[in-house]
């Protein structure tokens, strides 16, 4: 039927500049939301601290994202609970990002100068689904001998998505030379506050068939 209709883009009544500009702004909103598969603009209730955001962005590898079907994500730990001197629980809110194929995951932690020697760290994933709460899975073990930022690779297979979109990671760590006297004096070993906030760096492929690829007949 379209063949008989006038060509919609072939002229027609020209709009007044203000009306055209208002139309363009509405078109822009629709186009951006559709392009990001969103139904409405996100309401940001807890924006990440600017300094933490700037540092995190600086740490992202300058790897360009393939158009249309991959995303890079930085997710800051929303809750950091220290369960004991050498243990912390980090909580991340990832849904609906998580529905795609996660193929790269790193946890960024900032080791404080008070590190007396080598830090031995184990990272567990805690179950959040009903019936699995409290269950834990060892994801990775790392040894760190220097202070500052460390990017710890996590197995993407161990981070399969959950409906809740909530990911809990427990960090158990201790100095290898466990000379408690020294430790006591050096205080905390991992920096969990301010702009040294721990964050996850993820690369997620979206589930769509590759956009922009023309199927040839």
């Amino acid at each position, binding site marked *: 039927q379209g063949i008989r209709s006038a060509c919609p883009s*072939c002229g027609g009544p020209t709009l007044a500049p203000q009306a055209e500009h208002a139309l*363009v702004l509405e078109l*822009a909103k629709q186009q951006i939301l559709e*392009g990001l598969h969103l139904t409405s603009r*996100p309401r940001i*209730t807890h924006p990440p601290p600017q300094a933490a955001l700037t540092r995190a962005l600086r740490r992202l590898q300058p790897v360009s994202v393939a*158009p249309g079907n991959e995303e*890079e994500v930085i997710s800051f730990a929303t809750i950091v609970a220290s369960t004991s001197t050498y243990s912390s629980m980090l909580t991340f809110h990832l849904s609906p*990002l998580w529905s795609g194929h996660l193929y790269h995951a790193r946890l960024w932690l900032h080791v404080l100068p008070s590190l007396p020697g080598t830090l031995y760290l184990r990272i567990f994933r805690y179950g959040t689904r009903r019936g699995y709460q409290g269950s834990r899975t060892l994801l990775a073990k790392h040894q760190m001998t220097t202070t500052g930022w460390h990017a710890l690779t996590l197995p993407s297979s161990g981070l399969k998505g959950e409906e809740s979109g909530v990911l809990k990671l427990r960090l158990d760590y201790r100095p290898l030379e466990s000379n408690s006297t020294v430790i006591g004096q050096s205080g905390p070993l991992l920096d969990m506050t301010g702009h040294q906030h721990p964050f996850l760096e993820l690369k997620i492929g979206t589930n769509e068939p590759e*956009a922009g690829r023309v199927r040839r007949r």
Partner: protein
Amino acid sequence: TPTCEPETPLCCRRDHYVDFQELGWRDWILQPEGYQLNYCSGQCPPHLAGSPGIAASFHSAVFSLLKANNPWPVGSSCCVPTARRPLSLLYLDHNGNVVKTDVPDMVVEACGCS
């Protein structure tokens, strides 16, 4: 693609820059500050049909099928995008996560008559 002068009735690309500040979206779209929302409009008289760069146009594929089955199509040639490029966006999602993605086919680069 001919540049659009207000009085040009022919098919051309109409350039518009949209600043996210104007949309009130600068709080969740971190980068870029705005983008080119261009679109194609204008007349396509018969002698312009199929020009320029039409091979890349989806409409050209449909149009040539119609021609193959129908010596004279009953419709008119249309002013359509013939080249687009993705737009890289860095934005905050509902959970405050920072997402970097390339949205395909967001910016019209060229227009042509199908």
